[in-house]
């Protein structure tokens, strides 16, 4: 069961990371579009500590416009970047953190 559908606009949470994470600093607080689902897998925050039976979550490929990621981006407006995030790192776009 996935919380987000392909085409949904999502914002990456800017949660505090203690120690290991795969959620890049440059996507935090940025909004992109879900472009595909990835199979459920153990979240990196558990797997990194050898907890291979840790929390499993759906992963999403999220596409960002480069101009949304880098304020001084010098390339084309149509350039995009895709990355994968587990469900806990995403929230519906337009919803402020903490609401």
């Amino acid at each position, binding site marked *: 069961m996935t919380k987000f559908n392909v085409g949904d606009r999502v914002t990456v949470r800017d949660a505090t990371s203690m*120690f*290991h994470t795969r959620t890049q600093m*440059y996507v935090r607080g940025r909004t992109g579009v879900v472009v595909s689902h990835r199979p459920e897998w153990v979240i*990196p925050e558990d*797997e*990194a500590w*050898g907890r291979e039976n840790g929390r499993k979550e759906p992963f999403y490929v999220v596409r960002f416009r480069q101009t949304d990621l880098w304020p001084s981006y010098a390339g084309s407006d149509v350039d995009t970047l895709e990355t994968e995030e587990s469900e806990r790192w995403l929230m519906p776009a337009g919803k402020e953190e903490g609401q």
Partner: protein
Amino acid sequence: MSAIAADVEARRVLALRPEPAERLDSPYTISKDLYTALRHVLHDVGGQPDTPVLYTDPKELDWEMRTYVTCECLAWRGHWNAEERRRRENDLGATQYFGLPYYARWATVAAKMLVDKGLVTPDELSAKLDEVRSRRDGS
């Protein structure tokens, strides 16, 4: 610009890579911003300022492939996984993370994992290294 001139230029630019400006030597106090920066996961380098790096594509060496296969076999036997390996690489700290060759980083964290999990002792590792050294040196 000829290929050789471009190569020389790229090396010159590479040599201009900025040195870290802030000297850290176990300060008595630090700011919250510095604490946040210090906690940053090392492998997350996207967006950090840098200068062009020459692209090279050297052939993998035997020791590198043996390191790779050893690490995969340790995963196959359930001792760790790729994510734990990456976390352990980050935990080496910036000096070793960026100072060691890629597969030397793997070998280092594999050895530390084996010690952490009680599969080998530091003494056994040291003794084995001495054995290999004396075999290599023929003494």
